[in-house]
């Protein structure tokens, strides 16, 4: 180690970032009845409880379903918006960018309240999941947009011209040239969207409607009256889900940016 101070600094930053997660994971293996760390004895009993808890199971299914739908919609709209932004926006470029990033700049609670008023004003209400999904799309859109437009900026227009000169129409050019070349950006953006949607509290809380619940809301509800290690087990499972998501996309879909 050539720079002990820097090394120590980095270690501290990592500790600061990772320690809470490690504590939660550790606490989830608790054999005792209370959410404590270090755990009092090791056991998987709280995982068993969790997997037998219908309320949590329903919430996790809702969360996964909403995140999946929101990711697909957000990925499609965000990619299209990025295409417009980079290729056609011209002098509106800056305006388009600010509009697309607005959900990121506004406090989420404002977006949520505004959307709540809106869905009631137009008569959709919160009896279906449409409002909540719209909210999730709204807050995940900027992440898709940023990722895809970054990869589009490094897309050389002469690739498109070369493909045209070789006889490729619009669709073939998009499918065979552009999409493969911006794929890392699209997948990266979609991954962000999924994780953010899975994780968001405020939007879901405002728009979920009666009877449905997402995992973060259910967890919050649970912790208001209980303080068992089951909460830690729930958290650990969601961390695991996120991690699996990242690794699978990386391996299967090829998130590696520097393949060429």
């Amino acid at each position, binding site marked *: 180690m050539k720079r002990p101070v820097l090394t120590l600094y980095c270690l501290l930053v990592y500790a600061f970032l990772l320690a809470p997660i490690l504590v939660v994971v550790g606490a989830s293996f608790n054999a005792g009845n209370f959410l404590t760390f270090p755990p009092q004895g090791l056991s998987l009993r709280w995982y068993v409880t969790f997997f037998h808890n219908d309320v949590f199971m329903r919430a996790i299914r809702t969360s996964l379903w909403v995140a999946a739908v929101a990711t697909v919609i957000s990925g499609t709209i965000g990619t299209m918006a990025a295409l417009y932004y980079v290729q056609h926006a011209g002098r509106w470029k800056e305006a388009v960018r600010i509009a697309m990033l607005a959900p990121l700049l506004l406090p989420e609670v404002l977006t949520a309240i505004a959307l709540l008023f809106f869905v009631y004003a137009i008569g959709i209400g919160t009896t279906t999941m449409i409002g909540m999904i719209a909210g999730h799309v709204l807050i995940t859109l900027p992440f898709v947009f940023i990722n895809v437009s970054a990869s589009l900026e490094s897309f050389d227009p002469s*690739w498109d011209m*070369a*493909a*045209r*000169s070789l*006889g490729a129409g619009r669709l073939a050019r998009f499918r065979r040239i552009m999409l493969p*070349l911006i794929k890392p950006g699209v997948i990266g953006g979609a991954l962000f969207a999924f994780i953010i949607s899975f994780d968001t509290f405020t939007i879901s809380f405002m728009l979920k409607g009666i009877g449905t619940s997402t995992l973060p809301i259910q967890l919050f509800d649970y912790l208001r009256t209980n303080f068992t290690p089951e909460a830690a087990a729930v958290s650990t499972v969601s961390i695991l889900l996120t991690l699996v998501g990242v690794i699978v996309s990386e391996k299967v879909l090829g998130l590696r940016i520097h393949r060429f």
Partner: protein
Amino acid sequence: MTEVSIERLTKTFGSARAVDGISIRIADGEFISLLGPSGCGKTTTLKMIAGFEEASEGAIRFDGKDVVNVPAEKRDIGMVFQNYALFPHMTVDQNLAFGLEMRKIAKPEILNRIAKVLDMVQLGGYSDRYPNQLSGGQQQRVALARALVIEPKILLLDEPLANLDAKLREEMRVFIRDLQRRVGITTVYVTHDQAEAMTMSDRVVVMFGGRIAQIGAPSDIYERPENLEVAQFVGQVNLVKGTVTGAAGPGKSRVASVFGEVAVDSRTDHAPGIAVTLSLRPEAIELKPAGRGRAQGKVTARYYSGSIIDYRIALDSGETLHVQTFPNTRIAEGDRVSVHAPADGFWLLGAAK
């Protein structure tokens, strides 16, 4: 094969005329270069031929058929870009197959054609490489192969050698020229390098500010430039003031200058007594030890560069001359010299301004 005819082609960007009413007829199998300084409209012209830019006015005909409204992907052109524009996510084979797949050609035929074209550009064995695993020169040849493998009507190249080092550039000039001859494809080549245009082309189109200054064979452009701008763009040139003293046969005038009275080639006739400007190429001049000849002067600088020596001569009459000689010339800086210029080294550019 294909004959290309460009008629009063114009491209305006806002109020700026990037290409301003140019007309060129390109014969079947001809190699034409568009030569001119940066910003003169070469790329814009090429893009209009390719279909990447819409023409504001004028016509482009392939074998007599106007293609102005035909989109680029239907024009059947092969194009080579300055940065090669190889698809980075495809291997050499996949890059070459792309255009053939777009034409719905059967797999065995595709493989057949790829093998043939790779052989032609001497890249057999590189099939499975990705573009970033190739040198600049190899990428260049893949780009060329990709444009040729679809057997297009016309080959268009936009400064394809600009990113290569000097030695490779000279090799590739010859390579591309030979390949073009063998294939016999009508070719438009854009460059701002006059030596490149000269060595490769059947005819050179010299452009300035969106207009054509001159079209002609390389020797025509070099030896009989239309005006001062062309003369200066295609090589070093000395300007000599003179006065017309009379006619000297068809396309020749007698002109008196510091080098005496000589019969000079010209494009137009000039009346006696008119002041004219003559061009005199540096390599046409001969230096001899002082004392003989009319024009006397002094060597003010001498630059040795291997194949030639460059001299700057201050004439006693006040002019400065630029002279190029073989490297075995034994004349040093500061020497007094007499300067000889044969009559056919001169060209009458026009009336003096």
